[in-house]
């Protein structure tokens, strides 16, 4: 067993864990954050995607020990003051989820994608989410949701630009 210290959804934690404990199991079983799901054994599906220091990672392929000293954000930590994060809101508005199993991971991947590329094309969104599988939506509305979140984020900036112009 070993001691790890890390921050999960803004809360500093210190836990004794098995060296082989996967981050996704740590988040689910030790921290009780069960939004991230396990959908495969091969890092293929992305249902377990979380943010590690702001970047999306598949938490089934990260050892808890590797996350020591870092910041982890799961879907539970995305909404602020009870308000859905704009990406979460867009997923709802565009019906970008059905059974919900891939959703927490998909949302985290989308958040990360938009941080890296705030104004993506449809093809860029599709490529950016290639590592996150969804069996229900056919991806159609997921893509729309990410594009909608991108334009919603761009709108205030556009309005600002018009005012200052």
């Amino acid at each position: 067993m070993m001691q790890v210290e890390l921050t999960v959804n803004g809360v500093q934690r210190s836990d004794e864990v098995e060296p082989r404990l996967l981050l996704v199991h740590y988040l689910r079983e030790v921290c009780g954050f069960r939004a991230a799901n396990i959908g495969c054994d091969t890092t293929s599906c992305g249902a377990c995607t979380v943010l590690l220091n702001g970047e999306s990672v598949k938490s089934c392929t990260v050892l808890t020990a590797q996350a020591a000293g870092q910041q982890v954000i799961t879907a539970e930590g995305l909404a602020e003051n009870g308000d859905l994060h704009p990406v979460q809101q867009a997923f709802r508005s565009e019906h970008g989820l059905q059974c919900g199993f891939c959703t927490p991971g998909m949302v985290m991947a989308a958040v990360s994608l938009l941080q890296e590329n705030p104004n993506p094309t449809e093809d860029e969104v599709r490529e950016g989410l290639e590592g996150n599988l969804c069996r229900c939506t056919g991806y159609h509305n997921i893509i729309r949701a990410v594009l909608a979140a991108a334009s919603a984020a761009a709108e205030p900036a556009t309005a600002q630009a018009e005012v200052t112009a």
Partner: protein
Amino acid sequence: MSILGTRVLRTEDPRFLTTGGVYTEDVTDEQLAGACHVFFVRSPVAHARISGIDKTAALAAPGVLAVYTADDVIELPLIDPLAPGLMNAKMTRTMLASDKVRFVGEPVAVVVTEDPYQGEDAIELVDVDYEILPAIVDLDDALADSVLLFEDAGTNVVANFGDTASLKQDLFDGCEAVVTHTFMNQRVAPAPMESRAAAAAWGEDDRLTCWIPNQGAQGTRDDMVKYLKLDEGQVRVITPDVGGAFGAKFGADPEHVLVAWVAKKLRRPARWTETRFENLVAMTHGRAQRHTITIGGSKDGDVHAYRLEVIQDSGAYARIGAILPTLTILMASGPYDIPKAEAIATAVATSTTPIGAYRGAGRPEATAALERAFDLFAAEIGMDPAEVRRRNLLKKFTEPHQTSFGALYDSGDYAAALDKALEAAGYADVRAEQARRRASGDVTQVGVGVACYVEITGGGDESGPPSENATVEVHPDGSATILTGTSPHGQGHSTAWAMIASEELGIPIENFTVRWGDTDLIPVGGGTGGSRSLQQGGAAVQQASRELIDVARERAAAALEASAGDLRFDQGRSAFAVAGDPEASVALADLARDERLFVHSIFAAPGATFPFGTHVAVAEVDTETGKATLQRVITVDDAGIVLNPLLAEGQRHGGIAQGAAQALLEEVVYDSEGNPLTASFADYPIVSATELPSFELASMETPTTYNPLGVKGIGEAGTIGATPAVQSAIVDAVAHLGVRHVEMPATAMRIWRAVQAAKSAGSEAQPTATESA
């Protein structure tokens, strides 16, 4: 304004988006405190005799509580094939393999541990001796009966649906053109993102509570009762959130039964979640039919006769997949008016994963065979495939139409759907673009595929006409509860059922709680599958709501000292008012104060409904590499009146993606020894966002009279229409090179080979012809 028909956002979503759903693995019920963990030792070989099992090392491993084999579970009954009388009764299964294993993935032993990581380690330590027997993978090998999967059965044939002797010798007499072809509707994996799971706990009252992801708690309970030899009252099945099912989560599998059995044996709650590897080898697969089609007609495009011969690979043990050819036969002639049509099928056992239902379940296969036949016929006579279809579609009908296979189509306007889809696709423009590329000899060619379909949804069974129950209750605080016998796993019933009741009761949808999947609360229900939920479960909610208003009206009359006939229900205020005296009113919620206000109602439909439509696909093919790229999918899916376009479109999108995936990518592959080569998501090419375009949906609503909502099922339209449309588009892209057919999935290798074969055939036939001729 009516809420029905509007794009209401799902009430389910905030929870899924923030805390995530509570799937079976997430359930933290106190009854499950201290649960042990169940793991399965699965056969690594396709067909073998078990000559010995040594548990010693596993039992000595850290955390191992028990190891069980077939001898330990001998008290559990045999699993008989479905449909007694129809299927070979000797093809029974034991919960754990006893004398033989018959597919890679079949459970051989159970290992129970304190902690899941220990279980992963310990299953490696169970030493099973296998005497390898020849695998049966190829369908002809299976039919030859030279190796038998079940020696006592004397054959590998599970069931025959009609026989070759019944086929008419003269069926194609008089036809100017006849084409015959054999092709596979390949085996695919349902692959819901949530794999199978179970949690089980026994109470001090000897009652079993189990949490299982399923498509109908009641049917799952019935299986648990049967296989654990319990009384119905002893089992409670709870359905947590379900992460997709697609037909593969109906009822209880041996693993579910064994988890409950372990919990009883060890007097301790038990849980199990399968890995994706297990899911891809041990959850039922879908499709797996070989089709031989023969189609004949006149050279000006009238189809006179059609024959479909099906070989269904049922996998090692006959489950629902073995009986699905009956649905394929029922829908064999599709939306066409074919004067002479016949279809037969044989289901045969192979040493592979059992075949079950997968989105469409028997109907996509019928449509794929028929649409391929129409394309081959069109190519044979040199006519546009869309035109051949138009000539042969059944004319619009509003009274039920009986087909020669016994299907009773409720309403349809197939030509309108075809025309609408072609218009939405800009069919003439795509053909013009195709002509340009063909003329210029472009490396990247474009093809267009058209598929017309009609399907059956919400069918009943031998027990009677299709029906479903609902309970609607209004509470004094103005909220309301709906209990439904359907079982959503992504479809959005919480939103849809609330919309229907809201329309009747005037209660905002946010104030509804919709509950399902608890057999103590809802003992009867048909679950969700076969695209039945809205047309029966939704109709039951509407009926119960209307009956609740009738009950409330009597109470309101007493409260207002008025005649019930003088009362008007004002949905806007959710209150009864006396006609001509709006001041004299009573709120619906107030009528629930002194006595509970609820109605339980059963809606029975006169029969199944038959949604229909046309899918058009446009694909590009790189003629040098064979790589196909799906460019567009345009669909018209007429499932009657649309309750919530957002939800209906979501169902269409998902189905289109799975249908296109079958045509393009997905296939469960075995080697000749029965080893699965696609047992992970690294190997099984489950479709991702990069392989699909956005979809173009056109709407069309032809109501049915079979329920007051006017609705038919929409859940499976996508897989039914999209698969043949996409396959056809790929073939069409290289048709000018002489290609008539490409097997599914149309991989780059297959397309490239088809192009090469057509080129060499063309050069042999016309040695002087140039490449571009």
